[in-house]
Every structure is written in C-alpha cells, then in structure tokens.
C-alpha cells in the first residue's frame, strides 16, 4: 500500500465534486471493513466492480508455471470477493465518456500509470482507460486523484451503465447530421446512479453516432445506440435520433434492432429511462449468461419490447432534467485554437507523407484536419501522455478523444500545422503511421492480464503488427485498408466479429499437448456502424496465424474486383475457398521435441498444456476417434455458414444442429462406446453424463454452452431466418469449443473419463 494515501486524502478533502468525494470515503471504509472480515464477499465484489476495480489473471492465487499449477504465496488475508486474493493486483477501469479528454486529465493519467501501475496506460475498445496491477488499497487514492480532474471510475464495471461512447469525429465530421458529443455527455451524466439503472442483471452499453454509414461508434453492437438524424417538422429542421437496442458482441453476437426510426432529442432521456426501466424490471437476473438486454429483445421480439417501452414511457413521472440538461448542448462545442490553413508542401519526407495519408483526415470545417495518434495495442507510456498533453495544448484548445480502435484523435489542427504536429508527435514516439489500417491491430488484454483469456491476443497482435509494419508500404493498397482484431476468448472484447480478419482464442490438443489456437473469423463488417458479423471458418495453431494472414491477404489482393471491400469479397467468393487456403496450416505439425515453441503462446515461454499427459495406446485410439468426430462437427458448422451465405438459413440452422449433435456424440463416446446416432439418445446421455454431473460446466459461464445444445435440440424443427440461423451457428461453434475444453479436462482426470 502507498505511504501517501493519507496525504492525498487530506490534500483533496473538500475539493472533490459531491457526492463523489463522500462515496470514495465510504469505499475506503468498506475496504477497511472487508479487510477486517466484516463485509460479505458478494457485496464487496459488486461494490468494487461498480467502482471499476476488476480482477486480473491469477488473482485466485493459482498460476500455471509450465509444469504445474502452483499457489502464489499471497499473504493470508480476507479475499476481495469472487474468489480473489486481497493482495492480488487488479485492473482499474477508468470511464472516459465519448472519449473526451483534456491535457490535465492526460497528465493525471500519466502520474497514476507511473505511481500505481507498470508505467503504461491502456486505451480500450470502448474509449476507456485501463491501468493494470493496481492494489485494492490504493484504489480510493487513485480515484480521488482522477476525481480532482473530473474523471470517475464509477460504474466502469459491474451490472451498470458502462462508458457512453461516441464517434470521435463528432462535431468535425463531414457526414454527420449534428454533433452528438453534448448528448453523449448529457446521457452519461443522467444515467449515472439513476434509480432505473440499479436493477440491471448485467451491464448496459450505450453508443452515439453522428451518421449511419461509418464505423466510428459501432452502434449496431451496443445495448442501446443513437444515430443522429434530422427531420423536417412543421417547416423546421429538428434534431433527433434513430434508436436501436439489443445489439452486442459476446459469444453470440446480435445486431441491434430498431426501437424507433426517429425520436426528437427531447425524448432521448425519457425514452432511455424507459428502456432502462424495462430492462431492470424484465431482464434476466439469475442466469448472467442470458441477462444482457439482447436476450430480452430476443425473447420478446422487438415489437413487444417496443410496446413495453412505450407503455413505461407513459408511466414515467416528468423529470425536469429531461429538458434542463439539454439546454447547454449548443454551447458545448469545441473550436480551433489556431487559424485555418493550407497543407504545406510535404517534400521528400516519405514517413510524413505516409503518416498524412493514413492518420490525417479533413474536417468539415475548411482548413482543419484531425490527426490520429496510433498506439501500439492501445498502450501509451506516462512520458508519452505528458508529451501528448503538451502537444494538445500547443495545437488545440485542449481537447482530444480516445477511439474504439484504441488510439487518440486530435481535432481542430490547422492544416498549416500538420508538419510541425507530426514532428512533435514523432519526437514523442507517437508518429506511427497506419492508423485504421492493417497494422493498427486491435486486441483485448487476453491472457496477458484477463482471467478469461484462452490465447494471447496481445502476443498475436504484437507479432502481426511487427510483421506487417516490416512489410509496410510494400503491402497492396487494398490490404493496407483491412482491419485485424483479436480476442483472447469468445467474449469478443477485441471485437473480432466486426473485423475483416478476426481471431478469437481457443485451445486444441495436438500430439497430446494443449496448443493455443485462434479461430479465424471472416466476413465481418466494420463499416455501417458494425453492419454485420463474421463467422469462424477454421481454428489454427496460434503460431500459424501470421501465415494465415499472409495467405488470406494475398488471395484477396489477387482476386478482388475493383473497389471490392473485404467483406464483399468474402461474400462473393464464399468462405469455402478461404478455408481451403488455410487447411494446409492445420496439418504437418512438428513434434513437440523438435519445435517446442510451436506448442507455446506468443510472448510466453511456458508450456501451454498442463503437461506430462501420458499418451498410451488406448488413449491414442480414443483421441483419434474424438478428433475425427470433432473435425466432422467443425466442418458441419462451417458448412452451416456456407448455407447461410447461400441465403438458405433453414439449411444453415439445421446443419448447425447437426454439428451440435456430432460434437455431443463425440464427447459421450469418450465414456460410452455404444452410443447410437439417435438424437434423443445422444441428448439424454450427454445430459446424464456431463450436464447433471457438472463435468461440462464452464468455470466462468456455467451451463451456458450445454444450454445452447439443449435449446438447439428442442428447436431442431424450428423455422430459421438469417438472424436465428446465424445465432445457432455461432452457438454451435461455442458448444464445440466447450466440448474440446471438457474433453481436455476429462483427459487430465482419468476417473471422470471412465465414469
């Protein structure tokens, strides 16, 4: 614990906005009580999460060291809830509404990264910041220091309204209907701690976009999304929003559905409050895996959801803040520090030209541009944050934004200042070109720090970035425009569903060793606010993903039609040829002794498997059979995706169910050789042997994946449309991953295997 915690408390006493100051005092008391064992684990865990203090990998006190799982010798103290050890470092998430920051805030972030973390601040895919390796007892001080510069961590995690994100070019965009920034700010303020948000069973993520066509805010993948629109009413142009609900990524992504095509801005707050009340009242509370609003919208259908929201809207008591909070919106605008200018001759500086090409974009306002500061994997040092603060002060009125691509965006740069700005950024090692291009790889924290990580998404992202940077401008122009996004698991924090090339971590067994893999996801659409989601086509060993990227991008460069976007290309050629291209990467595996590095993850020398798994003759036979059946199951999922691509959702949904059945049978067969092909028998045996015994339960999501199978079995005669078939296919893929995980577990606990 820091020696200065008491100093900061005294220094900032009475200087923090209320009720935040009092809340932090209260949190500190709660930490003290928990340490004395006087607070309930569950209560403290939710309290901690609602203040943005998250757990981190190994916080349960167990760490696999390459040969065995060992206990980390944390001091014997009461836990922090949810099985976390008191002294285990945690992650602190820091909310940045619409990504808006000023230099003073950057400087505080720098100080905190240096004094409490490892010197790095991390920008997330939802415009937040994250600091890692934070001790819980230092968290209140850290929060006080943030509060001093008007930043809160409140409701950054937990079952709450998360950061309100927005298009980072709002206010300067050439295509927007109007600047959504003040509305995002108002909504964040209105919803924070609002009574109608206190009953949520899960998190709730809002996003604002100034237009429908660009990807800047990704509203289609949000719990609630607002797309700015103008409408003429009584001869006057009025501002309003198209509002969508029930979108989300996660294991099974959903496209948001339209709640209303247009609501005037005056209805933004009451309508949102009504949505929150409906979600709080009717959203799932017990099963957290079905508790996001998307499941409620699924269950009811959008029409019923819409009707319920309309009914609740009528019952809401008038709140003066609905209108009062909007009064200032037109004053809440940014402006330029320096006069507009013309872009000077760039001369022979190739790096500058490349940076201007990729990182600089014209604003709507003549003579000004935005400049993207591309961060490697979203990371920035304390020193760089201070340099950036100076740069922002020098060229702007002190504003900048974080982006969902884990970068910064500086706005209101006079075109005349572009070369000087680049020189200043370069001096701070912030002049990396390639923003929003293939080298600008987005990843979640993955196995680096996340408790749920299966494979190292950051390790893979770093490797891909380095290789692609080396190739640099030699890459075909079409390839340079692609987006790569990687998640360490199926939960999609790296947004793999909406990338041109998406990857998510899974594990497989090769030659008796666990090997980190990534599912390759293609066909996602970044444009149109995350307009469509991709599907996995094949799981490949992590170390072969760079080759996969080379193959896919090469194939695209050679075979694309003029101006054809990647997702259009995938749609035209189909996923089949792309999978065929990659299948050779799933064969000819090196022996472990010949190439042990193949069996480890990127940036981590530890053996990935739990090691020393004996492979006897008998086990070898079983492995072969299991692998054979699972390969068939995966092929069925792939074929289901192809059927969907061929506009045959019915066949797609039915084939996905066949994949479920095949995978379930493979697992049942591991214990019971004589299982038949009868769907009901497979289902019954699976339930009895794996579900009822909890063997299939995932440590984090419980019975979720088994429930996918049960639902698919029960609904095997259903009629499918494109959306329901897409969900069934995604669920089948997740079930297959869970079967792999269960199988690996069984192989290491022989008693269970033969039960």
């Amino acid at each position, binding site marked *: 614990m*820091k020696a200065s915690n008491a100093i900061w408390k005294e220094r900032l006493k009475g200087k923090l906005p209320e009720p935040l100051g009092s809340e932090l005092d209260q949190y500190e008391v709660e930490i003290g009580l928990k340490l004395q064992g006087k607070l309930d684990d569950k209560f403290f865990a939710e309290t901690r999460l609602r203040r943005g203090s998250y757990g981190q990998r190994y916080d349960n006190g167990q760490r696999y060291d390459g040969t065995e799982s060992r206990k980390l010798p944390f001091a014997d103290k009461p836990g922090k809830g949810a099985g976390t050890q008191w002294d285990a470092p945690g992650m602190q998430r820091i909310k940045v509404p619409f990504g808006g920051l000023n230099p003073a805030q950057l400087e505080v972030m720098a100080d905190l990264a240096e004094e409490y973390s490892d010197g790095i601040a991390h920008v997330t895919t939802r415009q937040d910041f994250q600091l890692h390796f934070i001790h819980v007892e230092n968290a209140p001080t850290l929060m006080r220091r943030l509060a001093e510069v008007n930043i809160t961590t409140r409701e950054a995690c937990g079952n709450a309204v998360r950061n309100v994100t927005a298009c980072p070019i709002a206010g300067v965009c050439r295509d927007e209907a109007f600047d959504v920034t003040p509305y995002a700010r108002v909504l964040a303020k209105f919803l924070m701690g609002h009574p109608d948000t206190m009953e949520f069973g899960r998190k709730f993520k809002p996003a604002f976009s100034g237009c429908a066509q660009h990807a800047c805010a990704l509203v289609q993948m949000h719990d609630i999304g607002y797309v700015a629109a103008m409408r003429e009413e009584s001869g006057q142009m009025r501002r309003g929003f198209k509002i969508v609900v029930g979108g989300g990524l996660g294991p099974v992504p959903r496209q948001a559905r339209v709640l209303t095509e247009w609501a005037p801005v005056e209805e933004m707050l009451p309508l949102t409050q009504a949505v929150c009340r409906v979600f709080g009242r009717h959203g799932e509370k017990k099963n957290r895996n079905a508790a996001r609003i998307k499941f409620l919208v699924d269950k009811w259908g959008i029409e019923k959801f819409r009707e319920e929201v309309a009914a609740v809207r009528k019952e809401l008591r008038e709140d003066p803040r609905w209108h009062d909070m909007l009064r200032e919106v037109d004053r809440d605008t940014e402006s330029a520090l320096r006069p507009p200018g013309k872009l000077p001759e760039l001369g022979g500086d190739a790096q500058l030209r490349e940076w201007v090409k990729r990182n600089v974009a014209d604003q709507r306002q003549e003579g000004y541009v935005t400049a993207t500061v591309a961060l490697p994997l979203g990371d920035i040092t304390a020193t760089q944050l201070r340099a950036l603060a100076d740069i922002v002060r020098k060229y702007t009125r002190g504003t900048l934004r974080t982006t969902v691509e884990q970068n910064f965006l500086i706005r209101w740069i006079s075109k005349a200042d572009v070369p000087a700005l680049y020189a200043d950024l370069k001096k701070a090692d912030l002049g990396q070109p390639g923003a929003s291009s293939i080298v600008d790889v987005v990843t979640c924290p993955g196995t680096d720090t996340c408790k749920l990580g299966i494979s190292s998404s950051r390790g893979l992202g770093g490797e891909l970035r380095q290789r692609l940077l080396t190739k640099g401008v030699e890459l075909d122009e079409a390839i340079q425009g692609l987006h790569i996004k990687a998640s360490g698991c199926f939960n999609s924090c790296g947004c793999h569903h909406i990338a041109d090339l998406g990857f998510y971590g899974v594990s497989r067994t090769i030659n008796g060793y666990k090997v980190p893999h990534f599912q390759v996801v293609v066909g996602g659409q970044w444009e149109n606010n995350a307009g469509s989601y991709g599907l996995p086509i094949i799981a490949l060993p992590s170390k072969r993903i760079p080759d996969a990227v080379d193959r896919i991008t090469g194939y695209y460069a050679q075979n694309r039609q003029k101006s054809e976007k990647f997702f259009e290309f995938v749609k035209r050629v189909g996923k089949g040829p792309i999978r065929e291209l990659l299948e050779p990467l799933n064969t000819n595996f090196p022996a472990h002794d010949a190439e042990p590095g193949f069996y480890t993850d990127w940036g981590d020398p530890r053996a990935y498997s739990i090691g020393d798994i004996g492979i006897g003759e008998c086990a070898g036979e079983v492995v072969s059979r299991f692998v054979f059946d699972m390969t068939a199951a995966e092929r069925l999922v792939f074929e289901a995706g192809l059927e969907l691509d061929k506009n045959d959702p019915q066949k797609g949904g039915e084939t996905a169910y066949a994949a479920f059945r095949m995978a379930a049978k493979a697992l049942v067969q591991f214990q019971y050789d004589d299982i038949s092909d009868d769907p009901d028998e497979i289902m019954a045996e699976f339930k009895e042997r794996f579900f009822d015994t909890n063997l299939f339960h995932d440590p984090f999501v419980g019975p979720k994946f088994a429930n996918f199978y049960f639902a698919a079995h029960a609904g095997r005669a259903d009629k499918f449309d494109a959306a329901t078939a897409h969900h069934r296919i995604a669920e089948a893929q997740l079930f297959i991953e869970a079967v792999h995980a269960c199988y690996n577990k069984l192989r290491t606990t022989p008693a269970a295997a033969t039960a």
Partner: protein
Amino acid sequence: MELQHLVVKIPVEGSLGIDPAKVVDFFHPWVAKQAVPGVVLVDVAELLHVPKGPGVVAVGVEADYAFDHSDGVWGVLYRRKDVVKGTNAERVSQALGAATQAAAALEAGFPGLKFSRKEFELIVNDRAIAPNLPATYAAALPEIEKALKELLGHGDFKLARHDQEPRQRFGVTVTSAKPFAFAEAIAV
C-alpha cells in the same frame, strides 16, 4: 522526509548485446520459483511494443523488477511498491541492493550484458511524498548523501537532479567515482 517507494535503475554499460525479448524467458522462472524472498511475483509483462517503455517487467505485489527502456535507456529497474520500514539509508540500501541483485542475475544469464557499476538513478515514485521541486531536492539531498556514504563506503560521488521538469518524479542520478559492488544474484 521519509523516502518511500524508491525506484533504482542501473543502466546497461556499452552496447545492449541481447535481444530484450529473451528477458521474458529469463523472468518467468523467477515467478515460477518465487525466487525473490519477501516479494510475491505474480507475472511477467512484456511491453516491448511500446517505444521507450517499461520493457519487460516481473510484476510483484511488494516490488517489480524490469529490464526497462524508459527514456530510451536500457537498464535493470527495481520499483518498490510497498512501504519499507526503517531509515532512509536503509530504504536506499534495500532498493539499490535489490536492483544490483537483479543486475547480477541478468549478467549471469546473458553473457555480454553489463550494467554500470558507477551510475544509477534513484527516484521517489510518489509525488505526494516527494514533489519534483527544488525544495524537495534541498531537503532530500543530505538524506540521500548520508545514505549513499554509508552504502558505498565513501563520499566520492556526485548527485544531480534526474529531471527538473515539475511533472516528473523527483529523483537523482548518482555517479560514483569508484565502482559499487553488486549484491548476490537472484537465483532460481
């Protein structure tokens, strides 16, 4: 003034001569074997993709060890996170000792890698305790000089403020006329 949360960084002497990524492999056994008494090491953070960044960090509860590249200078870094009891001299001694233990281990693990025996940075990683102001320097100087005389066994060294920029952390660069000894290497 009680100097807590000290950071000591000893720069690499001469050319780097190693691939910093190899330090990831080097640090992992420290965590696996819990090689540092009194420090619970939790994981290894590889941050080499960040220019002039923290490099490779063995993250602990009470302290971190790093092969650090901040300010563009490679060096071994020890960062004390927990409070250390005792006098300032004891805290400086503890931090420098821990840094030299890590330096000795890295030198043993990477033939050709050498750390300076005459220079190191001593930083107070806490702006509330030690704001980076001339007044702090004036107040801390006698304390640090006294501690270093005890520790190095002589007074033949120079101190200079590490960085005068008020936003930076307070610290000094120590340049000794005579080589200082490294403690026994961290062993696994």
